[in-house]
């Protein structure tokens, strides 16, 4: 059963790649946009997808693997149902970001850079969201949040629990 699901997932990936490349082309410079599309559609770019990507753009699998693993954005495994990105850069640190990072890890019950065991939330570092005068800043499921404090953290935690 599990095997069949995996096979279906690979087929789905291959179909997505085929549809996309028939519109956007198969040149090498399409690799990053293609990876962004896959991550958007299926949540990650895992090892099973790499042969199909390599074939579509006429690249070696090693080459595609090298690109996928170079960029922080591309996930090798799906994230949790909610993703909280917390800024770790200097401007947020100057506004108490380090303490908020510890508090977030504790309140959400997940270490920085990890997905919680129940799959409900992933906590990730981000280095600057460009909101540097109103930190500490976070991106909660893509929504920007400024001046993260204990009360805001509580609201985020409740949003994630729901």
């Amino acid at each position, binding site marked *: 059963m599990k095997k069949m699901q995996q096979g279906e997932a690979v087929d789905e990936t291959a179909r997505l790649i085929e549809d996309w490349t028939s519109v956007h082309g198969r040149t090498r410079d399409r690799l990053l*946009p293609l990876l962004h599309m896959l991550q958007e559609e299926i949540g990650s770019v895992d090892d099973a997808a790499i042969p199909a990507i390599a074939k579509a753009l006429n690249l070696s699998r090693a080459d595609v693997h090298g690109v996928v693993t170079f960029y922080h954005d591309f996930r090798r495994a799906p994230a949790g149902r909610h993703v909280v990105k917390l800024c770790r850069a200097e401007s947020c640190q100057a506004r108490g970001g380090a303490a908020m990072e510890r508090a977030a890890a504790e309140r959400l019950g997940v270490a920085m850079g990890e997905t919680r065991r129940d799959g409900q939330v992933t906590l990730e570092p981000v280095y600057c969201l460009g909101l540097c005068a109103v930190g500490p800043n976070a991106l909660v499921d893509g929504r920007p949040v400024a001046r993260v404090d204990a009360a805001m953290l509580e609201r985020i935690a409740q949003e994630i629990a729901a």
Partner: protein
Amino acid sequence: MTPGQKNKVYVSRDMASVALGADDVARAFEAAGCEVVRTGSRGLFSIEPLVEVESGGARTGFGPVGPDDVAAVLEGSHAARLGDVAALPFFAGQQRFTFARCGIIDPLDPEDYAAHGGWRGLDAARAMAPQAVVDAVKASGLRGRGGAGFPTGIKWQTVLDAPGKPKFIVCNADEGDSGTFADRMLMEGDPFCLIEGMAIAAHAVGAGHGYIYIRSEYPFAIAAMRQAIEISAQRIAPFTLEVRVGAGAYVCGEETALLDSIEGKRGQVRAKPPLPALEGLFGQPTVINNVLSLAAIPFILAQGAEAYAAVGFGRSRGTMPVQLAGNVKHGGLYEIGFGITLGELVNAIGGGTASGRPVRAVQVGGPLGAYFPPSMFDLPFDYEAFAQAGGLIGHAGITVFDDGVDMAHMARFAMEFCAVESCGKCTPCRIGSTRGVEVMDRIIAARDADPAAAEDVGGGLTKALHSRSLARIDNGREAQTALLRDLCDTMKYGSLCALGGFTPYPVLSALDHFPEDFGASAPVKEAAE
């Protein structure tokens, strides 16, 4: 509110304003029957979410306001009434050349853009020969606003003179430096300005296609630029543009790594030469400029190079959109001619720290910029003056820290950041940054340990260098500090690009200006170069 008459209000759609709740505020005004125009941000975040109510052609500002304040704002009785926003001290002192329209117009309304002086630079440029456009940019004295400060006109001349075809215009919008947000604000608040600048560059050097490489952390800017490109396609034809989205790699802000990233490769730094101007994107002649450099171009062509060069300081001509960030009371964007001092920016304009505690340090120029103590606040904002003081202007972000900061921790963070973001191509950066974190850990451990034990040193550096046994390494503070300086020297002169090469700036400036945080009692004599 008068029945039948719709109130017109302006609310920012800038990512920072939205992070502070501007969307809820805009919805509340819409629900109350107002016509809401979403603008970019004026650039002062202590008054965001800002609402400006139009009446009789004038706008009255209120901020910060929340969604429950609609009635009080429309009555004009709200306590946070600011009056004419442009007359506030934060704005009255600015010289807005590049950001003249930001916060005022609807960013995606081409008529609004044209009504506020848009496209005049492009029309002027297209009436001129390409060489004349390049000459105008040279005469303006504009230098690359991404940080390196290289004269933009000379770069364009090289591309104009290069024989190959096709040529490309690439905009570096991978604004990864903490404490900077001017590129983001411009792309969200006045995207046509950047498009116009790129179209002028294309005319000047003979390019047909351009790329805007935007970091993935800026979803609002990506959306705004894509829409603006679609809307203005006819206006800039035959020149065409597309947005490419980064993928979380800081090093792609380095121009050659950025080019490799557009080509679909790992974002690794290329060795120079060849210069990107001669062999850039896909091996073709390429203009690669920062957002702020390209966005300064329409003003230069519309108002004349002399008008731009008339302000400034020494060899730094024109204006710089300075970004006040971190623990600062009035943070935001402050565009002003070069020459203003660091102290004026931090204290007079920024109002000191947000926490109300004394300013202890400011970092200028992002994670690769130096830390300066308040004793150096008379430093004028000028490329040469900053270089002489052992720092850099970079992208002109100023991150303010209060007296709670541990400078040894910040030095460690600089090394840690370099280790996380290193592209791995050159050894000093890839290995040096990791060794740097380890050395900083030993220095911090020695500092925090029993002071008597920590002073037990002697011949440490020699021992460390020749020892293969961890137990024999001198973990004393002085030995490790000497090792840190040595390592910084290797990184500075041995790295391929500014990531490894400039990481020593924050580390050594912290060590030189704040030796007490590294466990030393007096400033170390040997100064950073």
